[in-house]
């Protein structure tokens, strides 16, 4: 049975199963679909797992649907086990259909028909960890990682995309798509070409986002990417490593050995640029240049050029909170330097799990 109902005014805040929501460019959030049938296959791949089921329509014709159920790491955290769904289980799925005529959907709920058991339901989030002061090294510096003998990493950010601080809150969805495109002028002080490119990317629902091809999330986007990150401080080597849990498990080097910053013309341009860090009190200040133009440095499609210069300030205000502030200076793209900031929450007693971006993985198993 297939029921596809168009909900004209369905708000964009459809309750999704998991933190990494389905891409707006793939799924039409203004429609709903209800599917029922036996599970024929499970594909447990990054960035999104799929359930396949045979669905019989009113005429008796059976078609096989591919249903996205969320990110494997999020599913595991929410209690997924190998026995959660078995081949042959008849399930009822409600979700969002793919754009066009594809037999594909993103699930918002999955129920096993015989038992009425709802699966893939997000587990209750843990209570906020107890407040505590930021841990410190013997020399008094704030530690950016866990206290000795403890585990943990930096998790969710309080923002989803860069927006200039002085303009206040600009509503977006969790991909950085503006609720109102007319807010574009509030996002950043664009030069005309840059605003036109940004609006083009927004209007095309970010379909050209390089991150979909597993291109690294360079610049501030690395701190907006699912699955967190951690700092590895190596003072004896004069560097701090930033290890990403998402993206393609990319890593970035921040040099803290006192070397001077170079000039962009001398550098081999890269996704994470040439980063020079120094401490001012409890704040790590990182100056970066030498970025290539092959990535989007924020969710939502902000453009940049090779002139991009970032100054980032990392301040661990307590055990559980990292304040991040970035000054963006790209005179070829923006009319003046501008700032954006957010906080990032500590995930205690856990480690970053294995995750690798697999470009267009579903094309290998969805017809």
């Amino acid at each position, binding site marked *: 049975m297939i029921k596809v109902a168009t909900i004209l005014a369905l708000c964009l805040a459809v309750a999704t199963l998991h933190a990494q929501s389905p891409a707006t460019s793939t799924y039409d959030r203004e429609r709903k679909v209800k599917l029922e049938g036996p599970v024929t296959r499970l594909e447990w791949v990054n960035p999104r797992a799929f359930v396949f089921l045979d669905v019989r329509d009113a005429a008796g014709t059976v078609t096989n649907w591919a249903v996205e159920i969320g990110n494997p790491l999020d599913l595991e955290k929410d209690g997924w086990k190998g026995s959660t769904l078995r081949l042959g289980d008849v399930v009822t799925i409600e979700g969002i259909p793919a754009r066009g005529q594809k037999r594909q959907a993103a699930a918002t709920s999955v129920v096993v028909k015989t038992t009425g058991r709802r699966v893939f339901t997000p587990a209750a989030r843990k209570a906020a960890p107890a407040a505590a002061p930021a841990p410190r090294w013997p020399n008094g510096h704030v530690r950016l990682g866990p206290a000795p003998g403890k585990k943990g990493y930096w998790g969710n950010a309080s923002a989803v995309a860069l927006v200039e601080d002085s303009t206040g809150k600009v509503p977006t969805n969790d991909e950085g798509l503006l609720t109102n495109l007319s807010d574009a002028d509030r996002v950043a002080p664009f030069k005309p*070409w840059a605003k036109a490119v940004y609006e083009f990317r927004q209007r095309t629902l970010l379909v050209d986002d390089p991150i979909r091809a597993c291109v690294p999330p360079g610049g501030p986007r690395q701190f907006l990417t699912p699955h967190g990150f951690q700092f590895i401080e190596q003072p004896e080597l004069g560097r701090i490593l930033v290890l990403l849990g998402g993206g393609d498990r990319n890593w970035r080097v921040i040099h803290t050995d006192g070397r001077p910053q170079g000039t962009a013309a001398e550098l081999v341009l890269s996704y994470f640029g040439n980063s020079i860090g120094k401490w001012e009190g409890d704040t790590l200040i990182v100056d970066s240049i030498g970025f290539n133009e092959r990535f989007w440095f924020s969710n939502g499609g902000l453009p940049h050029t090779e002139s991009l210069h970032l100054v980032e300030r990392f301040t661990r205000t307590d055990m559980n909170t990292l304040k991040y502030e970035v000054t963006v200076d790209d005179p*070829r793209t923006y009319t003046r330097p501008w700032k954006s900031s957010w906080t990032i929450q500590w995930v205690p007693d856990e480690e970053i799990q294995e995750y690798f971006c697999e470009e267009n993985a579903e094309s290998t198993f969805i017809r």
Partner: protein
Amino acid sequence: MKKRFFASISLAAWLVLVATGLAQQGHPLTGTWIGDWGPPNSTQRTHLTFVLMWDGDKVSGTINPGPDAIHLPSVALDVTTWTIKIDADAKDKSGATVHISAEGKIENLGSPHRTIAGTWRQGTTNGDFKITRD
């Protein structure tokens, strides 16, 4: 046979990666563009290579870099329509100056291999042109 098949698949995968993953995402005109111009419906086409660069104030560049390069002092871009205008002076075989003026529109803006197509006038010859970002 297997080796050839594997090589073909690898090449195709690499081309897909290059096409999608390594695209230039900065100013839409920056980069190298390759194509040709000629009278409409003619098979006599003249090769064009454009190298364009946005410096924050204007787009400038070179047509056919090398010994016969034509300097492009500026390329006008209207971002409301994604149309461009080009004016430049080339030299003909006798060394006389020949003026070039062209107008075109960027197509497939989000694609790494976006194109610009439009009209081309060189001296007294009218034609069309199409260039694709390399």
